[in-house]
């Protein structure tokens, strides 16, 4: 009996470890490094500026190398949320030490990409862990492999970009929510919001689950956790703009008009369909395996035991999709 238990536990542990080691090895070997595109330049600019100049303000010579830059009263800053640049700073610092001077395609970028790969691999492990709460190890491992290699997580794990870093914290929050720890869930969601502003949307499903499971107390704990980490985003805004309620995206140099004017509600249904089914950005064409996930969600919702989890997962997916449908530049989101 004990022997069977030990064998099961050890095989479970092997798959658990594999769900981290396999993606991390593949991601580390497919990092872009020198061959990377210039899209994430402003994140490198911000990190270098924070570590070396101790300010989030970018010198104009540095800001000119990037497309995602904000200009407010003559002051340049990164238009991207600062979380990924801040969290990957220990990795970037090693790169800067090796580079000895500011360079866009040096060790700093490679080490930051390694950090993103690490985040994506930890997310893969969490997918296994969350799936294992409901199903067997082999099926959970398949879900983890699908997430790691069958979705956009893989290409984005090879470049410096905020998506995979935010995914880790959103997923960690979902894990804590399902495990009955609303304050920890709120705290990790706050970190995700610092990395990617759109992560704020996930607060809605988190609140729904907290309310469903623990009532008002759960919602208060979730909100408290969120404030404990989320204030850093407002502090960053104050540091840059002297106003916590001004966000960098509002003053993006490429923008025409206010932030709200960049939403196109009348085109939302069209964008919704394009984001799901168009060749350009359609999720069903880039990761058709996720259609199986949607079918499975439907089956889960019919089981009283899995209903809550099904609604939680479905709403976590839908809030993001609906939000990007309202965004005018649907293809850039």
């Amino acid at each position, binding site marked *: 009996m004990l022997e069977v238990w030990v064998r099961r536990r050890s095989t479970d542990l092997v798959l658990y470890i594999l769900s981290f080691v396999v993606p991390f090895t593949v991601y580390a070997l497919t990092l872009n490094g020198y061959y990377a595109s210039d899209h994430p330049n402003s994140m490198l600019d911000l990190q270098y500026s924070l570590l070396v100049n101790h300010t989030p303000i970018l010198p104009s010579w540095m800001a000119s190398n990037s497309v995602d830059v904000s200009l407010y009263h003559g002051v340049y800053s990164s238009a991207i949320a600062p979380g990924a640049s801040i969290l990957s700073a220990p990795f970037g610092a090693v790169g800067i030490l090796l580079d000895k001077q500011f360079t866009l395609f040096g060790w700093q970028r490679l080490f930051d990409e390694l950090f993103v790969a690490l985040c994506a691999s930890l997310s893969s492990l969490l997918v296994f862990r969350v799936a294992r709460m409901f199903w067997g190890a082999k099926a959970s491992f*398949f879900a983890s492999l*699908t*997430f790691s290699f*069958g979705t956009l997580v893989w290409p984005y794990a090879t470049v410096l970009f905020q998506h995979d870093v935010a995914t880790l914290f959103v997923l960690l929050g979902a894990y804590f929510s399902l495990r009955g720890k609303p304050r920890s869930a709120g705290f990790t969601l706050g970190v995700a919001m610092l990395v990617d502003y759109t992560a704020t949307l996930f607060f809605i499903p988190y609140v729904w689950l907290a309310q469903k499971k623990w009532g008002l107390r759960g919602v208060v704990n979730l909100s408290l956790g969120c404030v404990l980490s989320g204030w850093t985003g407002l502090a960053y805004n104050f540091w840059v703009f002297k106003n916590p309620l001004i966000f960098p995206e509002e003053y993006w140099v490429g923008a025409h008009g206010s932030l709200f004017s960049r939403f196109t509600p009348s085109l939302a249904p069209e964008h919704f369909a394009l984001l799901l089914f168009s060749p350009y950005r359609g999720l069903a064409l880039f990761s058709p395996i996720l259609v*199986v*996930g*949607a*079918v499975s969600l439907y089956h889960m919702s019919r089981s009283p035991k899995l209903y809550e989890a099904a609604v939680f997962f479905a709403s*976590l*997916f839908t809030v993001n999709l609906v939000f990007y449908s309202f965004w005018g530049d649907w293809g850039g989101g």
Partner: protein
Amino acid sequence: MVDSTPFLAIPIAGLVEGCRQNWVKPPVFALYAYSVFVQAIGSFTDVFSGYGGWRFYQPFDYNLGLLLRGRLSVWWIDIGVGEPLYVKYVFVLCTIVIVYTLGALALWGFGFPAFRWLNRPR
């Protein structure tokens, strides 16, 4: 959209495990294989692309061409140690084969009885 994908990936485990019909797994694996291929060519070449209209399909209209021309965006390629060109293709092929093999193992376990108990929930 990337941070939403885990919440469609996790439930896949439910369908894979709950479905008793034998015919379900081959189409699931086919969808898995195609998804992995699309993401792989994006990872080996370039995740970003220019706008080409809503009918522009980045994997085939952009990334596959780069891959066939041997233009890989992988940090250790061409670092000056003089590795031959075929190393790139061997690397791409091996990576995809390993990911396919692991997926097939997770789906079927190649019928090894030792894997059967893994289907039971905790």
